[in-house]
């Protein structure tokens, strides 16, 4: 579905992404993991066309996303950013309706069909009762769900999420990941999610890609990537990997002495 090929990005003289290639398929959750500063956010920004790339392409159905206009790109690919510094005065409903922008004219006039799609998006993330609330009054978890609904309102086949669980407590992390997994498995979206928490990645991702210092060091099932050797080396920290008590996934424990 989404084919990232040899993507390289530099900030000034510093190379932040080094020839990154990733395949993302419809119906799967691919978790992007890696230490701080590895380039996870940069990869999301580059693939969504908001920063210039030095080399590489981002292909969808034979089109190069980076060569498309912002509007046409936004019909293929939606991004869920971290819920920081949102303009507080907009209501959740207004925010979600902005997701319809790629299909609207410059004036942004919405039709009843657009409103119906926005309504469904809010219901899908279980946030319809937040519609009339102002974004600034919502909790972090609620804001994150509204942003997810806005991305769904874009009606794209591809969804990128940039560490959406970072400011959420355990309950809201799990709730969000359940929704994300259901979007891939039940609605056949192709989902790439940058994650900090390795065990969240192990539990909810179909595949995991490990990004270290701008390069993909490993990619595969959680069991293939989350091994003591690979993770210890990537994070410069000895770790233990044990089986999950009942799910068929690994659990990563830092080996602190």
């Amino acid at each position, binding site marked *: 579905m989404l084919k990232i090929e040899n993507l390289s990005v530099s900030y000034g003289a510093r190379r932040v992404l080094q020839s990154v290639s990733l395949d993302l398929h419809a119906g799967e959750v691919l978790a992007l993991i890696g230490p701080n500063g590895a380039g996870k956010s940069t990869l999301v920004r580059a693939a969504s066309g908001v920063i210039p790339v030095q080399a590489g392409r981002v292909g969808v159905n034979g089109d190069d996303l980076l060569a498309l206009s912002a509007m046409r790109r936004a019909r293929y690919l939606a991004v869920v950013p971290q819920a920081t510094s*949102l*303009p507080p*005065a907009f209501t959740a409903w207004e925010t979600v309706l*902005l*997701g319809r922008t790629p299909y609207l004219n410059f*004036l*942004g006039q919405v039709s009843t069909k657009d409103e119906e799609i926005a309504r469904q998006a809010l219901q899908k993330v279980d946030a319809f009762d937040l519609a009339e609330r102002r974004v600034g009054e919502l909790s972090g978890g609620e804001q994150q769900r509204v942003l997810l609904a806005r991305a769904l309102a874009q009606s794209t086949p591809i969804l990128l999420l940039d560490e959406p669980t970072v400011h959420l407590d355990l309950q809201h992390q799990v709730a969000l990941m359940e929704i994300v997994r259901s979007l891939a498995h039940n609605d056949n979206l192709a989902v790439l999610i940058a994650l900090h928490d390795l065990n969240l990645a192990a539990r909810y991702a179909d595949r995991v890609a490990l990004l270290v210092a701008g390069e993909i060091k490993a990619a595969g099932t959680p069991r293939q990537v989350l091994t003591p050797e690979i993770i210890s080396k990537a994070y410069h920290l000895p770790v233990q990997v044990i089986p999950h008590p009942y799910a068929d996934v690994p659990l990563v424990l830092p080996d602190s002495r």
Partner: protein
Amino acid sequence: MKIRPLIYCLFFLLLTVILSIVIGAVFIPLADVWRVFTGQPPQSVSAAATIILTLRLPRTALVLLTGAALGGSGAAYQGLFRNPLADPYLIGVASGAGLGAVLAMNIQWPYSFWGLMAVPAAAFIGALLTVFLVYALARIGKTVPTTNLILAGVAFSSFATAVTSFLMLQSTGELRRAISWLLGGSSQAGWGPVLTILPYLAIGLGILLLSGHALNLLQFGDDQAQQLGLPITRTRTLILLAASLATAAAVSFSGIIGFIGLIVPHVMRLWFGADYRRLIPLSLIGGAAALLLSDVLARVIIAPQELPVGIVTALFGAPFFLWVLRRAKNQGYW
């Protein structure tokens, strides 16, 4: 779109328009105004007719347009830069216009129509040149980072202000006129000024009125606006030029009038919400009404003399704004 705020603002505007026609050196009763407008002026109101048609109406129209330009472009600048301190003069439009005006005053123009037009024309050119220069200085490749734009604007502003002060100290004659212009209030009679700035305002404010949706998207930051499908550099350039065009046209005849472009959008946002599709037209109407009211006050405070309207907007605008701000209990309206 909720229609009620619009009706409130239009009603207030109508009220200030009537005040502006009625009040001045000579008070004209409403009945006489009515007679003048309904066509058949009897002998008794011919003086009133002259005052209204050649003085009050053109002035009212000029002040209305200027206020609309300041309010509308103020809202656009605040949205564009996502900065509550942004105002129509932020990126150096005012100091560029000031420099242009003082340069023109330094050349002793003959006292003719073109001589009178030279100052506003120079102010307009100075303002527009500043916008393009600052924009070019702030540009990096194909993008124009907001911070660069503001920094370039502030730096160029200081430079232009210094040159302006230098020229004013050097000049011998027209200093008083220059100071009065800089304070906002070069009131010229007749329809000339109105007709001169009308095309620029129509284009500038017309574009701003259509930009509400784009400004809403820009509130979420450049990344998100782009990811939602907005071509941000092109859109921002268009809105910036439209707002600057409107500001430059306003500045050229009315001088530098502070606070309207800063305060009116804030008050509208506090009262009626942050949706720019609503905020732009409301700020436009509110700016026109606020400046008309200030202009009326400027005529009566030390009558028969007139104050520069810029003094009135600061004198009353600032305390009024603080009062509104104190009353607004809901945090984070911005």
